[in-house]
């Protein structure tokens, strides 16, 4: 929304609402709370109503009309690769696995050639690369009423020394609750990594079980492996359950 338009809308709403700034004198006859709508009549006969509390909106971006550009479902940002749809289901392990709504799920991963956006002087397949100022393959979403954050991206490539992976973080009420990574079935990763767009790089020599992150626990590896359906030509999709203890 344009700022002018936003301000115009606000002005109209303010004019239409029952805002009586003259009221709420200290001699009011009843109290009010922030969470409920309470109408108070003062001893001098004027009335006032507690203004309903609403979400702060699209902040932290001052100006209000700009949404954080990283708040996006499609994080592809022009990068080419095999399409990948990943749904994250956030559940509370301390509450009968009930879904957590409004949790912020951040993800980021490398492109088909093994480079990250935003970083300078990265060694890799295509030599040293700098992608400062770029944000592709990064983003965050708030989980919906079903506890889901649904991202569209591409299948990650790989870089030396690491298994193929996606990073994620989960914040609940702005508190960091989980930092983790997920990987994939090597059968699928290998098929993707020899397909046309990835073929220059080929199969990742670091297998999941030998990886410095995933390899320390077979149990953890199983929990961190995203099951996918699909194909190289059609793309892949899957749902990853993120359990957090709240």
């Amino acid at each position, binding site marked *: 929304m344009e700022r002018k338009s936003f301000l115009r809308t606000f002005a109209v709403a303010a004019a239409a609402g029952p805002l009586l700034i003259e009221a709420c004198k200290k001699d009011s006859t009843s109290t009010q709370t922030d969470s409920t709508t309470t109408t108070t009549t003062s001893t001098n006969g004027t009335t006032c109503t507690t203004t309903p509390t609403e979400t702060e909106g699209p902040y932290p971006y001052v100006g209000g009309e700009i949404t954080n550009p990283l708040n996006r479902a499609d994080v592809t940002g022009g990068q080419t690769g095999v399409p990948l749809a990943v749904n994250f289901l956030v559940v509370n392990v301390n509450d009968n696995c009930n879904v957590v709504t409004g949790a912020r799920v951040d993800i980021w991963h490398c492109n088909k050639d093994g480079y990250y956006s*935003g970083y*300078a002087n990265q060694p890799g397949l295509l030599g040293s690369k700098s992608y400062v100022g770029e944000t592709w393959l990064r983003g965050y979403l708030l989980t919906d009423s079903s506890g889901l954050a649904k991202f569209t991206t591409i299948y990650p490539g790989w870089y030396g020394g690491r298994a193929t992976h996606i990073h994620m*973080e989960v*914040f609940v009420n702005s508190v960091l609750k989980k*930092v983790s990574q997920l990987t994939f079935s090597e059968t699928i990763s290998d098929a993707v990594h020899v397909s046309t767009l990835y073929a220059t790089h080929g199969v990742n020599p670091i297998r999941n079980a030998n990886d410095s992150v995933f390899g320390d626990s077979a149990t953890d590896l199983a929990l961190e492996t995203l099951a996918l359906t699909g194909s190289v030509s059609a793309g892949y999709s899957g749902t990853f359950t993120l359990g957090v203890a709240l």
Partner: protein
Amino acid sequence: MALIKLAYKQIIDASAQGKFERSVLQASYQEFLLKMQTYNPNREFKTFTALKVHDGRANSLHYKLSFAVGHFIQTLDNKIPGLSDNLGNPVKFEIPQFELIESHINDISSHKVAITYTTGILTLVNQLAEFMVLAEGDVSEKFVADTFILKMQQGLSITSYQEYQPESLFKDTFQQV
């Protein structure tokens, strides 16, 4: 004559007034509060400086915060804020680099960041005292070029310098060897 790149460092702190600066300050601080938790799970460390001493990985906050302000930088349309030539025209940048200077988990007034804007290649045609006669791109082989004049000032630096050597000089030297 030389081919150069300039860098201009803009410091943004609680005194910021402009919409761009306020946006960068606010967005980067909110992101700091979120992302610092990875290195500070118990909120034991209050400042970015203390956090870095405790865990060197906290240096990745420079990058992590930069992602949250990238969109604002795009709105600059590659014009360096606060830097203009002697006619008041903006100077264009190619690469912005974000830096978290300091912050405090309980106090946005301690939050201080910098953005260093680096230009593309400029031709330094001449220098007149503290003034640089510049042209966009490499015009070293041209007889006529559009130029502008920029004053050397606080926060501005030359970060790349290549002395111009005429092609003919290269050939002569090569033939002699």
